[in-house]
Structure formats: structure tokens, C-alpha cells
């Protein structure tokens, strides 16, 4: 499988604080990757380093070419939506559309017209008057109309209500994603995105804790439930997390498990994420 992004030994320091430490990742084409971590884990920093927005040590390559060779033309193939609605509040919606259209040789005018016609965004209104949801939607539509190969999303739906969040991911999957595209979604709201993710990268304290395909991950982990009096049997499998309720003990266990009369269920990505980052 073709590697779209190749990260080798990426380290980033903010003065005395190490934000990223020796990050090594290979992201293949045609995947939706969740970059999952707690607040301050280093997710945003990693995405910003990928786009050369920050000084860093190590090497990042897109499509087999180092970031240093790409310069600004990388943005014809890679788009980024930051964690805050970072559009210019002084421009109107139409002025913002015209700006992005004028700057991007890959701008697809027909697609843009179709997307914006459906969106009902008020084109003559200044960006500063839009709600956060509308700003995020505008940002996404601008990005979708650019026809890029890779999309990096940094907490894109933070602070949005459930309607906007659903619309956002529907648009992303319906209008952007196919087997030739790659999406990296950074978020700490794991439950929100786990149904659309194909791969996950768990990041904690600037280090990659796990990089795995979701289907393999779910095969590798199990939630085992036994009655409270058999807790010692469960503990023998060294569960990464346990909880007790209604006379039962549940444990998240890695690897195959054979335990008679136990209930075994497939864990969610959120369960595994919590277990891994709390190890």
C-alpha cells in the first residue's frame, strides 16, 4: 500500500517542554486515521509539524518527497482545518470563497458551486457574524472544493452541536473520502469518530502509544465480564482496565482469552484508548 505520509524521528520542543518525542508513523493512502489523545497530548503540534507550520527535528515526507522539498505547493495536495474557526473575520463568505478559489489551481468551481448552493451559507455576511458551526462548515466546504488528496482535521467539530457534527462527517464521507484520499482526524472525543475510523494512532505525552487498524485492534482486545467472586480469575489475565457493577467485574484484556462462563464482548475504541493511555 502506498505511503502517503512518512514521519521519521519527529521531535518538537516548546522551550523547556517536549511536545513530541521521536514520532515515527507511516500513513497509507485511502485510510481514515484517528489521531487520538487527551488534551495537550501533542495532536495539534503533530499536525502543524506535518504542514511545516512549526520548527521541528526529524523528517516528514508526503508522497515520498520530503517536506523541505515541497515548500508551499504541498498545499495543492494537502489541506488542513485547524481546531479553531480560523477564517478571517474581516472578509465576507463570498470574499473568502473568492480568495481560496483565486489562490488554488486545484479549485473545482463546479463542485464548489454545488456545495455552496446546498449549504445556505449567507454569502454577503461577514465571517465574524457566523456561528461557530457555520464557520466550520464554510471551512470544510472550501477545503472540499480544493480537491486535495490528504485532509488533516484538527478537532474540527469541537464546540459544535450534534446536528452540525453529523452534517460535518456526512459531508466529509459523502463529498471527500474515497479510496484515493486520506483523512487524519485529530480529536479527544474518541466516541464521536470511532465509527468512521479505519486506523487509530494513540498519542500521549508526545509519544505514539499505538498505531493499529481498528478491525485488528478490536480482534486483539476483549471485554471480559465475570461475577464478582471470580475476580481473581479475571485478574490473572492482567486486564488493562477494570470496573465493577451489579455484582459483576468487567476487564479489558489484550490477547486471546479462554475463561469458562465469562461474557466476552468486543470493546469500543474509546475503551481501548482509555486503557492504553492510562497504562
Amino acid at each position, binding site marked *: 500500500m502506498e505511503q502517503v505520509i512518512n514521519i521519521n524521528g519527529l521531535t518538537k520542543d516548546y522551550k523547556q517542554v517536549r511536545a513530541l518525542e521521536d514520532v515515527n508513523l507511516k500513513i497509507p493512502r485511502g485510510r481514515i486515521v484517528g489521531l487520538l489523545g487527551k488534551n495537550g497530548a501533542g495532536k495539534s503540534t503533530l499536525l*502543524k509539524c506535518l*504542514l*511545516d*507550520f*512549526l*520548527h521541528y527535528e526529524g523528517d516528514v515526507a508526503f508522497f515520498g518527497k520530503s517536506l523541505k522539498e515541497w*515548500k*508551499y*505547493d*504541498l*498545499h*495543492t495536495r494537502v*489541506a*488542513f482545518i*485547524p481546531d*479553531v474557526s*480560523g*477564517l*478571517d*473575520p*474581516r*472578509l465576507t463568505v463570498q*470574499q473568502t470563497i*473568492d*480568495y*481560496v*478559489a*483565486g*489562490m*488554488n*489551481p486545484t479549485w473545482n468551481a463546479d463542485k464548489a458551486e454545488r456545495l455552496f448552493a446546498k449549504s445556505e451559507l449567507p454569502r454577503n455576511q461577514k465571517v465574524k457574524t457566523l456561528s461557530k458551526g457555520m464557520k466550520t462548515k464554510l*471551512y470544510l466546504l472550501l477545503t472540499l472544493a480544493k480537491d486535495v488528496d490528504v485532509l488533516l482535521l484538527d478537532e474540527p467539530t469541537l464546540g459544535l452541536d450534534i446536528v452540525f457534527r453529523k452534517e460535518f462527517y456526512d459531508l466529509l464521507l459523502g463529498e471527500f473520502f474515497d479510496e484515493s484520499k486520506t483523512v487524519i482526524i485529530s480529536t479527544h472525543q474518541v466516541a464521536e469518530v470511532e465509527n468512521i475510523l479505519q486506523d487509530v494512532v494513540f498519542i500521549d505525552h508526545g509519544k505514539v502509544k499505538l498505531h493499529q487498524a481498528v478491525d485488528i485492534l478490536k480482534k486483539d482486545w476483549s471485554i471480559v465480564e465475570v461475577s464478582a467472586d471470580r475476580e481473581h480469575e479475571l485478574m490473572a489475565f492482567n486486564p488493562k482496565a477494570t470496573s465493577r457493577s451489579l455484582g459483576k467485574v468487567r476487564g479489558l484484556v489484550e490477547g486471546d482469552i479462554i475463561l469458562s462462563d465469562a461474557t466476552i464482548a468486543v470493546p469500543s475504541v474509546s475503551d481501548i484508548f482509555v486503557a492504553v493511555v492510562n497504562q
Partner: protein
Amino acid sequence: MNQIKTLFIAEYQKRKSSYWWPLWIVAGLTVLSLLALLVAWIINSPDIGMYGSDGSREGLRIGMYGVMFSFGMVFAVFMALSAQSSLNREKQLGSDLFFRSQPVCTWKVTAVKYVMHVFASSLLLLGFGIIFALILSIVSVFFAEGFYLGQALYGTFLGWLTYLKVALVFGSLSFFFSSLFKNNALILGMAGLGILEGLFAIIEVIFRHSINMPNIFESLVSMVGTMGLDEIDDINMAIVMGNYRILFGLLFAGLCYAGATLIYKYRAKDI
């Protein structure tokens, strides 16, 4: 070409008010002056008269030069005050990553910002000057007994050129300051130059004036060029353009732009 055009349009849209504010101020002053003139004319004030209004065509040229020079000072002050916004505003508004995510060379972006910062208002000044010259020419039919639009426009143009020289040197300097300082760029930049000037003076004293340290502010002014008051009576292209020092001004402007871009490029990554 499309990118350059888009950058110019967007830069204008983003900072529209800062370009127009000085124009509204000088327009207000002009309206007040014309009203005063009208009142004086109605009441037949004996003091009413124009400089060089002894029926000569030069009066309008000199008058318009003075008007443009005065208006230019208002524009120059606004240009200096808006220095902070040139390279910092996007970051302050949190939209810098949006602009940096576009496939465009930073040198192109800063070139457009530089041109707009230094010269955008000058077009408004010229436009206003032409309208003012026309009004003054019409007024001069009554007060100077002649319609000397050509001379008025010539004076406008000379005044505008003088403003351009000021804008070139001090606009470029303020643009450079905006790359150095994220906040209070003009104040910090001028304070920095003042401290440097003071250090030079101290060094001269220490060495008992045996070495000549450069005088920064004097050097800046000399690039713009100076003229004596007596020269205003014969104001013409040669006087306005001055001597070869304007070439140093052009070089200085180029250095300010290049330096600002390099600093901006480096500092942009320093989030």
C-alpha cells in the same frame, strides 16, 4: 497572475478602513476650509486671498503642492500607525493558519502586503488631490482670474511625488518593524532606533569625537530629501526628485522588504 490579483483584492478587503480613514479626515478638513472660503466670499472679507494669487499661474501649482504635502502628512501618520497590522493582524485574529494553508509563496504574500501598506493610500491621495485641484481651479476663476487646471495638477503631482518618497522610506521602515515586533511595532521600532542613536552618541563621546558614527534619523530624512522654504516658490520636478540619495531610499526600501519577509517567514513558525 491570478494569485497576485487575488492577494491584492483580499488585502484591500481586509484593511479597507485603514486605507480610507485618512481620506475621510482630509476630506473633512477640505470641506471645512471650502465652507470658510465661501463664508469669507459672501461677507466680502478683505483678508481673502490666495498665496501667489497675483494673477499668476504659479500660485495654483504652489498651493496644490502645499495642500498635497499637508494631506500627505496625514496619510503618512496613518500609514505609520497601521504598521502593526501589516504582518501581525492575521495572527492576532487567529486566521494565520488559514492563509498559510494556501499554495502561495511567502515572498509573493509579503510583496503584496508591502505594496498595499506603503502605496495603497497614495492612490487615494492622488485621486483626492486631482478632485481638489479641479475645485481649486474653478475657485481660482473667481479669485485669481484664470482657469489654471494644468498648473494645479502639476502641483498635485509634485506633492504626491514628495509623499511617495516619504512613504517609500518611512513606510518601508514601519513595515520592517511589523516583522520584528508582534505588538506596538511602531513604538518599539522607533524606540529601538532611538536607543541605537543614543549608543552611537555615547560611543562618539567616549572616543572624543575622533570617529563619526552614523546619525540614523538624519540618514533616513536625507533619503527622502530636503528642500529649503525658498525653493517652494520655484517648485518643480528637479527640486522634488532631489539628488541621487533617492536611490539609497529605493535600496533601503528593498532591504526593508527582504528583511521583513525573512523575519516573517522564520517567525511564522514560532507559534
